[in-house]
């Protein structure tokens, strides 16, 4: 059982208009096996939270803590965080020219576990995960994210989630740009990883439709850089019916 704690997190970002505070005191606790949905209107700071947990250099933490089983995550470099068991499925995965998917996956797996995976089982695992995500075998010979469609990029993110077996995954708008079939395939992947590894999930989304396939234990409504309301799955249903107006008007 692991626990990821976010305490009073304040994060700023440099903009052309100067330094801007995006997160204004976020508190969240996620335990192994729990699925937390973070919902909120555009610009509320959802993605900033995701990138701050992963350690993107663009974001500066000015106050607060992130702890993974008591360890100070903010003191870790980006790759140390990943090796500690944190995973970020990105909304806009970048292209890496010249690096094939198969080489990339093997390098990442080696980095995470500290040793090269046994070839035979590794090939089988990759094959199986790709089959599950309806990815063609030719995929592994393509360069990372190069010329991938939106849906292929998201499947590739979830493929990594399944193979790298993190303790906690932050999914940053993984549902955006997916049609219903792709959404289902990707959601099944998340559910498999959740079940197989007792994964803790922080599911960031603007819309409720992905929650039909991935059932959250907790829903947090994010407004203006803070958690404005928390509840169970029923809160998502209410958002579906009422939207975010109730919160944004109050601000």
């Amino acid at each position, binding site marked *: 059982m692991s626990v990821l704690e976010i305490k009073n997190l304040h994060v700023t970002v440099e903009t052309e208009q100067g330094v801007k505070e995006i997160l204004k005191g976020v508190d969240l606790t996620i335990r192994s096996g729990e699925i937390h949905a973070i919902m909120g209107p555009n610009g509320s700071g959802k993605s900033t939270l995701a990138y701050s947990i992963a350690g993107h250099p663009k974001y500066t933490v000015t106050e607060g803590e992130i702890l993974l089983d008591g360890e100070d995550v903010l003191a870790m*470099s980006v790759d140390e965080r*990943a090796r500690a068991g944190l995973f970020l499925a*990105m909304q806009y*995965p970048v292209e890496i020219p*010249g*690096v094939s998917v198969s080489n*990339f996956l093997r390098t990442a797996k080696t980095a995470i576990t500290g040793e090269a995976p046994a070839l035979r089982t590794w090939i089988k695992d990759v094959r199986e995960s790709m089959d599950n995500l309806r990815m063609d075998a030719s995929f592994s010979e393509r360069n990372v*994210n190069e010329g991938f469609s939106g849906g292929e990029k998201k499947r590739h993110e979830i493929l990594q989630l399944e193979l790298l077996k993190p303790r906690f995954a932050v999914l940053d708008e993984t549902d955006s740009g997916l049609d219903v079939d792709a959404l289902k395939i990707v959601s099944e992947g998340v559910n498999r990883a959740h079940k197989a590894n007792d994964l803790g999930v922080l599911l960031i989304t603007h819309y409720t439709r992905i929650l039909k396939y991935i059932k959250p234990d907790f829903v947090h409504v994010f407004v203006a850089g803070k958690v404005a309301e928390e509840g169970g799955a029923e809160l998502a249903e209410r958002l579906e019916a009422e939207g975010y107006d109730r919160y944004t008007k109050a601000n």
Partner: protein
Amino acid sequence: MSQFPNQHGLTEHSHGAVVPLQIRIDRPKSTSVSDFPAISKTQDLWRYLDVEQLAGLDADVLGEYKEQVSYTSQQGLSISWIPSTDARVGSIGIPEDRVAAAAYTNASETLLVEINESLSEPATLSVTGTSKTASALHIFVVTKPHVEATLVLDYRGLGVLGENVEIAVGDESRLNLVSVQTWDKGSVHVSAHYAKLGRNSLLKHTVATFGGDLVRVTPISTLSSPGAEVEMNGVYFANSGQHIENRPFVDHAAANCKSRVTYKGALSGDKAHTVWIGDVLIRVAAEGTDTYELNRNLLLTDGTRADSVPNLEIETGEIQGAGHASASGRFDDEQLFYLQARGVSEAEAKRLVVFGFLLELIQRTNVPEVIESLSKVLEEKLGVN
């Protein structure tokens, strides 16, 4: 025109506006140094270099390389020094610039490499410099018709070398020529290659440059017999203070010939500078020509500079295809973040990207010793700035 998909961080140059200063075949040729003006940056041929960087290779009098050159004999291969007055010398190509002319004039002997039968093993000529005395070397490679061979020119040590390499590929022959420059720091190497391809012959020509303060190679492939095919590849990595310049030229003079020019380079560290000028000329007679040239550069740090200029002159419309692409991109913070977010350290991330970018061209040489040693050199270069 590009057959390659758009990539993150890679931007197409606006090379449509680049006009060669003169028609490529009108460029003056001479074996005499005095026929060329003193080198200056105002000349298109030398615009990216300071004359001091040439370390004396533009002088009237140079030393000669002979004992610096070593080789082993094998079945089907004959190597000997001949006087440069021999009629063969200069028959494939003569200098188009002052440094090549100085090297031509000062090399009193020429190393004649005759490939008389197909070679079962790659042949290697090792050139190992031992001083910074500006010196000259002339190599003449000739293959008989219907042979298949691999020849490696391996340059290392500390040297300042001006050079001409003539390559005569016989009819129906296949020659794989690999020129590897892993000179020590302080070295300067300016080399002009002239290749002439026989009917239905194939030349694979690779220039791999990793070491040396200044390495400039100007390979010319003349496709003057029908059905000839040339593959010109280049791979390079410039660290801080290194200048690596490649100016390949394909002269399509006969019908139904094919050329593919692919040069890729990485740059890392302050004032790492690479230059690629790729010329292709399709003459009136060269109907059915199929050509494509590509240059890509990967900028790993700030302070690097990659110049890249493709030039295409077409004198006939009756061709199969003619294209070019040039793109320089940087390994940016977002790519680094993505790889780090998967547990990969910064050093390993750079290694992954650079190997992915350059290894394919190294592997295309098909010479195991070259692939192995250059992979090691690449590792070393990734460790320094």
